[in-house]
């Protein structure tokens, strides 16, 4: 990379030395004042305290901070500034970092979305029901499925949705008791195995073999008349596409099981393949990933769950349907598996995903998957030139999909700096620390960049220049990397307290009790020396 030197910016994170909110304020100060009950109301019902049943009235006021409105605003603005997040380049693999359009945000914050109640009559929310239905049609076009719902509050919750649909399907056939096994792979997201177990299934996990995916032989050995379903992603997080997937689906169907496609890694294949044509019964899209809705640091998110006509009767209710010209919430679904979350989903996020779909269109979606795969292969080519980095599955020469898992095993052996240390150091250059890998780590010291379609070639070059620079640092001065970050809000945290019941402090009141700090001024911890 030295043939094209890139100037790395001088960067330091904002440091506000911001106290914990519990330490702020002054007795009696107010950030919100509510109207007094009217004289007419008091006249009719008496004082508020007379309306509280005997013995229930609170006697000790909660020890919340007492702040003026600008004081509270300023505190949280400082915390905003102490959050790097997506302010620069984030290639956080498996999460498909996208531009979260401000226009969608502005629309979703308007009262015609924000201040709508989910139990309003259908005729009073035709706009939102239309948006949901039209987006459903778009997802059907992309997947070949027959019906989508949006009740799941995230990708894991969509996997859980698949669990309850699977239960209801097998129960309807009188086979649920016997069909108590879910098959998945070690490279499928942990939520597939976890939700299946939480739903009462036994989990059978297939390991990877020399081609980079489990063999058909291993699958055959796992399948039986106890098989309830297969939960699988494809391509996986290493960037490997399983070319046998159609045969997998055929085999599972032959044994009476259902096939669920976890489309966590959809960005590279959108418009290129469809779950339905591969034989799947159901699939899931993450609207906060592939479809441009913001992540919010962990939700509100949406796992859009779609299935075939055969499974649709079992979907959690309500389902948005269109009759003639009107849209409605269909609650009258006799075979429904019930609900997995109250109401019908994180509607603003569905709306933002719909906006993304409209803005991209069939041309934009096709181009975006092209660019994602192109950009990842461009990065594969360039990252291979950096010392200490190796690609997972080195024996597989074919081009990877939209992301690739890399390893810092060599760097760690050579310098003692592994993926955690390098991630910490990245933040010193203003770059969001990378995603390593889900558990278990199959390759040593993993990291998983995903370029996506938003970032420019210059952005990708910059990101790789940071990695190259850190590799140089690791070989020249490993302590610099191991003790990173140096330009961040705080230094490395000490993690020993986090697993020690005597020391962990999950609220301020626990902290005060365990660590002997009073909440008085003068004995407060500070964010910097």
């Amino acid at each position, binding site marked *: 990379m030295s043939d094209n030197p890139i100037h790395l910016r001088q960067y330091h994170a904002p440091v506000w030395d911001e106290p914990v909110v519990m330490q702020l304020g002054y007795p009696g100060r107010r950030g919100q004042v509510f109207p007094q009950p009217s004289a007419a109301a008091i006249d009719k019902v008496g004082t508020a305290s007379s309306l509280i049943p005997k013995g229930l009235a609170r006697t000790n006021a909660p020890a919340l901070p007492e702040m003026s409105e600008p004081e509270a605003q300023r505190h*949280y603005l400082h915390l905003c500034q102490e959050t790097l997040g997506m302010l620069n380049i984030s290639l956080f693999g498996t999460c498909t970092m996208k531009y979260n359009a401000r226009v969608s945000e502005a629309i979703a914050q308007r009262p015609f979305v924000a201040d709508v109640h*989910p139990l309003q009559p259908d005729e009073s929310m035709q706009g939102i029901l239309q948006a949901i239905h039209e987006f459903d049609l778009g997802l059907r076009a992309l997947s070949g499925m027959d019906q989508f719902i949006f009740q799941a*509050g995230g990708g894991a919750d969509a996997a859980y949705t698949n669990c309850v649909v699977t239960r209801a399907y097998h129960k309807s056939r009188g086979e649920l008791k016997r069909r108590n096994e879910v098959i998945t792979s070690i490279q499928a997201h942990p939520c597939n195995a976890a939700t299946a177990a939480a739903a009462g299934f036994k989990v059978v996990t297939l390991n990877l073999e020399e081609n980079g995916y489990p063999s058909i032989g291993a699958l055959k050995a796992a399948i039986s008349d106890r098989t309830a379903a297969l939960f699988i992603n494809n391509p996986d997080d290493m960037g490997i596409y399983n070319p046998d997937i159609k045969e997998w689906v055929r085999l599972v169907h032959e044994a009476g099981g259902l096939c669920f496609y976890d489309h966590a890694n959809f960005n590279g294949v959108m418009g290129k393949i469809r779950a339905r044509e591969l034989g799947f019964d159901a699939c899931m899209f993450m609207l906060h990933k592939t479809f441009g809705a913001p992540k919010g640091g962990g939700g509100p998110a949406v796992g859009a769950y779609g299935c075939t006509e055969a499974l649709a009767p079992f979907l959690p209710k309500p389902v948005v349907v269109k009759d003639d010209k009107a849209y409605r919430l269909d609650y009258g679904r006799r075979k429904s598996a019930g609900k997995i979350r109250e*109401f019908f989903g994180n509607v603003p996020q569905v709306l933002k995903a719909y906006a993304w779909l409209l803005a991209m269109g069939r041309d934009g979606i096709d181009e975006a998957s092209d660019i994602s795969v192109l950009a990842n292969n*461009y990065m594969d080519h360039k990252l291979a030139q950096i010392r200490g980095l190796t690609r997972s599955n080195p024996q597989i020469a074919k081009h990877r999909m939209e992301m690739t898992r890399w390893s810092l095993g060599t760097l760690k052996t050579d310098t003692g700096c592994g993926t955690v240390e390098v991630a910490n150091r990245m933040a010193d250059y203003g770059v969001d620390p990378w995603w390593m890998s889900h558990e278990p780590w199959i390759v040593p010291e993993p990291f998983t960049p995903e370029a996506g379609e938003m970032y420019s070639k210059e952005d990708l070059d910059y990101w790789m220049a940071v990695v190259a620079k850190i590799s140089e640092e690791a070989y020249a001065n490993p302590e610099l990397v191991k003790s990173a970050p140096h330009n961040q809000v705080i230094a490395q945290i000490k993690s020993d307290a986090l697993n020690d019941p005597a020391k962990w402090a999950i609220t301020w009141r626990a902290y005060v009790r365990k660590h002997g700090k009073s909440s008085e001024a003068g004995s407060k911890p500070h964010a910097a020396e």
Partner: protein
Amino acid sequence: MGVREQVGHPWMGNSLPALKQQMLGEIGAGSIEALFEQIPEDHRLRQRLDLPLGIKSESALRRRLTDMLSRNESADTNLMFLGAGCWPHHVPAVVDEIVGRTEFLTPVWGSAQSDFGRNQAWFEYASQLGELLSMEVVGLPVYSWGCAIGHALRMTARLTGRREIVIAEVFDPERLSVVENYCEPTDMPNHIKIRRVKVDAKSGLIDLDDLKTKVSSKTAAVYFESPSYLGLFEANAAEIARIARQHGAETIVGVDPLTLGIVRPPADFGADIVVGPTQPLGVHMNCGGGVGGFMASRDEERYVREYNGFLISITETQKPGQFGFGLASAHQTSYGMRENGKDWTGNSVYLWAIANAVYMSLLGPQGFREIGELILAQSHYAARRLAEIPGIAIRYSGGFFKEFVVDFSGTGKSVAAINKKLRKHRIFGGKDLSAEGMKQCALYCVTEVHSTEDIDRLASAIEQVVKP
């Protein structure tokens, strides 16, 4: 058309032929298509996607969406008396500003150092809620109140090794359906049996005599709410917890956090685990997309080791005197242990946790007292006003908060017909309970957003509507 195809998409930095060519050249590939070599030809979709072309213009996109969404009615231009799990409350402008900030809106995870500010805001969510609840452990929120109940019930089943829970026969059907799924169907080996305890017909409170027959050495937990689904304060909370404890069962209580400035927290009455909705704390209804659920407990290892979601702890850093935040007891989650983890976790409603933190800091102890008293006064005023209308009665004699049951059966008109007519007055009437065993009753919700004039307007509209 030809011109359009050459326009780079504003959301894609590499949407230019020259850049694509440069990258292809670097890779040494002949075409982008060649990069898809892993996918067998018979897997490929070769027909055109049945989607329109993209709308690259922001102004055109905005117009398209606002035209569609303008067909919605909302609490902004109507009087809203619907609650039942999602409530019309005031959202302070500062809350909207903070959760709309790109720093908080868009991050994915980061590190303890680089996303420090967000982690601190999360800790402040837990810390402030902990003060309201008088509890030392508050997890980051789960998807909803119903999901929080479900995870808490499963937690107690693991803790006690028992597989029965007791809940009231009157229960929000939305939450109940979620809970039933969390308890698993009877065919599953770990099915948790749900036993329903009667409520007293007059008071609406849990029937203690019946409770004694339902709780046994098989009971993992008793779960009840105060205020209940129908808005009633559970006056016998301490006695319920005592009965549960007598049989070695845990007590889980659901509570509306907006009551906690005026009402003692469930921990005072013996609650072991407390759950509830987070939407009242500064989150818009969002067509139901504003919901979230909190979980809290005492700081005892047996509880902490059973949380399915994330717990944020304050801790030290390598720099003396400096503090930071990290995940406590994190290995037990599904990220750490896959199918052997505690239930599962993943994306939840963490942005709303920040909304909640900002909201609680704006209210402080005085604000929570004030809003609690205002909601009490306004909702009771509304109940009295409606009870003055011939044919209308208020069900249940116990104290209530925010929500109450209005019985219209004496008017000879159905709730459905009344609510339909109220729409002409730009009013959303209360939730129709007719399908829930309470014929021609409705659950009305009155909060701090309703002025006395609003309530008078409701009363006079209903008077007109129910006139024989």
